[in-house]
């Protein structure tokens, strides 16, 4: 029974089922929009989880990569005449490239040094988006032209629900593949004991970099989707608060659990929507949630639930 639940592909199937069945259960466009946002943020968090939950490296600046993807699909068509789908690809590759270049020096750091270095990286990226108004529209942001694929303009919640949903299924499938592969074992080994991994022949720096680049690409694609869906991008998409939201989603759901990433994203997207009354209290809720979860449920929701279920079944 436990082995069944431990299968990394279970979450792929579950996600596919959710994507297929939700439109039948959720009639209104408003709820489908929320689901679309959950899919988009889940995509970013699944990627971040590969870095934080599996490889064990913390990143407090991941919104930087999210923002690169978000702005790529805005600047590409607007200032460079590049079609949106190509800009999306470029954004993902660009984020991967930046992660590759910054990653080598940054990932040599540990613990809170790594945390602050990634924080600084994210903030610098956000600052560039905020200051270079000629390209990015500055603090007010810029409009994002809609995605145009072979004459068909992609817009509206129904289209983006499916794009984001299918992408998430693909994203979880890739994550599951990584987890079940030698690379996944290597990442988990690095997380548990770097020095042991080293003496077993693992080039630790290389593998941390793989996780970093992969998570950056996931974030960039998610950022591009959000931009295209909303039709607008502002520097807050690359900002500190967005980075912290991603980390909270990953930790809340449960680091090391792909399912947890989706749960965490769902909670943090749905809750503010449900509590619209508490608009002003958004920060207070976020802050409280971060504290309470880390104090009482340090492993996250999904592992905590799994623990309870395991103790019930002999």
């Amino acid at each position, binding site marked *: 029974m436990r082995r069944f639940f431990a299968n990394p592909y279970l979450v792929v199937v579950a996600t596919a089922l959710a994507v297929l069945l939700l439109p039948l259960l959720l009639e209104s466009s408003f709820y489908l929009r929320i689901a679309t946002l959950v899919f988009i943020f889940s995509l970013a968090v699944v990627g971040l989880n590969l870095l934080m939950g599996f490889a064990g490296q913390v990143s407090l600046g991941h919104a930087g990569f999210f923002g690169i993807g978000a702005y790529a699909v805005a600047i590409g068509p607007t200032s460079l005449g590049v079609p949106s789908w190509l800009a999306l690809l470029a954004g993902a590759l660009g984020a991967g490239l930046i992660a590759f270049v910054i990653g080598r020096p940054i990932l040599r750091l540990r613990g809170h040094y790594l945390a602050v270095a990634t924080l600084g990286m994210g903030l610098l990226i956000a600052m560039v988006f905020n200051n270079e108004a000629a390209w990015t529209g500055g603090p007010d942001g810029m409009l994002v032209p809609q995605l145009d694929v072979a004459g068909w303009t992609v817009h509206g919640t129904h289209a983006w629900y499916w794009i984001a949903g299918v992408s998430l299924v693909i994203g979880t499938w890739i994550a599951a*593949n*990584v987890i079940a*592969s030698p690379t996944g*074992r290597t990442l988990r080994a690095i997380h548990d004991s770097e*020095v042991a991994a080293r003496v*077993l022949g693992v080039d630790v720096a290389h593998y941390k970099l793989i996780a970093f680049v992969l998570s950056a690409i996931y974030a960039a694609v998610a950022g591009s989707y959000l931009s295209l869906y909303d039709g607008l991008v502002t520097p807050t998409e690359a900002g500190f608060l967005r980075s912290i939201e991603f980390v909270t989603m990953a930790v809340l759901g449960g680091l090391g659990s792909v399912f947890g990433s989706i749960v965490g994203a769902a909670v943090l997207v749905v809750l503010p929507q449900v509590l619209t009354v508490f608009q002003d209290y958004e920060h207070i809720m976020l802050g409280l949630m971060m504290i309470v979860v880390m104090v009482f449920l340090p492993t996250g929701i999904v592992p905590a639930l799994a623990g309870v279920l395991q103790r019930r079944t002999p």
Partner: protein
Amino acid sequence: MTVLAVDRIGISFGGVVALADVSFAVEPGEIFAIIGPNGAGKTTLFNVISGLYPPQQGEVRLDGADVTGFAPHTLARRGLSRTFQNLQIFFRMSALENAMVGRHLHERRNVVAHLLALPSVLRQNAETRAKAEELLGLVGLAELAGRAAGSLPYGALRRLEIARALATEPKVLLLDEPAAGCNPVETEEIDALIQTIAATGIAVVLVEHDMKLVMKISKRIHVLDQGRTIAEGTADIVRGNAGVITAYLGRHAQRETAHAQG
């Protein structure tokens, strides 16, 4: 044909000399022990040989090639593996997975194939799993393969580290206190295991405090005290060496022993 040569190794930490002028050579299939009182520098020596600390003086040679200061993963690729005094087990992985990670050097590591779950990955996983199961069988952990490493008893963890290190197919295996904290039965098992390993042609270098184990299975013993070599030879030679007795038991004991021996 020497497989591991350590030549006048010296290292200091912030002015404190941890090792000075330490040299020895190990042949394939030999069981070579390094002993000495606490603080003698035994684990530091292992850390230097296995690439964790670069020495300030001296050379380490593997199969004749200079590998001084090489990174641990490069040394592993060249056939040097080790275990740790403070058990660096992958506690959140199963015993089997621990051994599987040890097969890293012998796996096909194409990341793109891993991302897309190409058929080669399934084959690779099966191969790695089979080899890992074999190794667990060798160290007597076959029934515990699926258990989380964190839930295994201490003696089993010591054997697991050995199995994992063996998975790399090393030429030289450094064992850092493999019997530490083990009861006499467990120590016997480790003893037999080490002899089996050496019989396959692997050079085993052993740091140990358990004198019975050391004297029984080692071909040669190298004694360190305060970072320096004070004796090297067979068990009998070392046992009777005055300097060794003084290092362990103090001058008073040395006089007593000399007196007892007439």
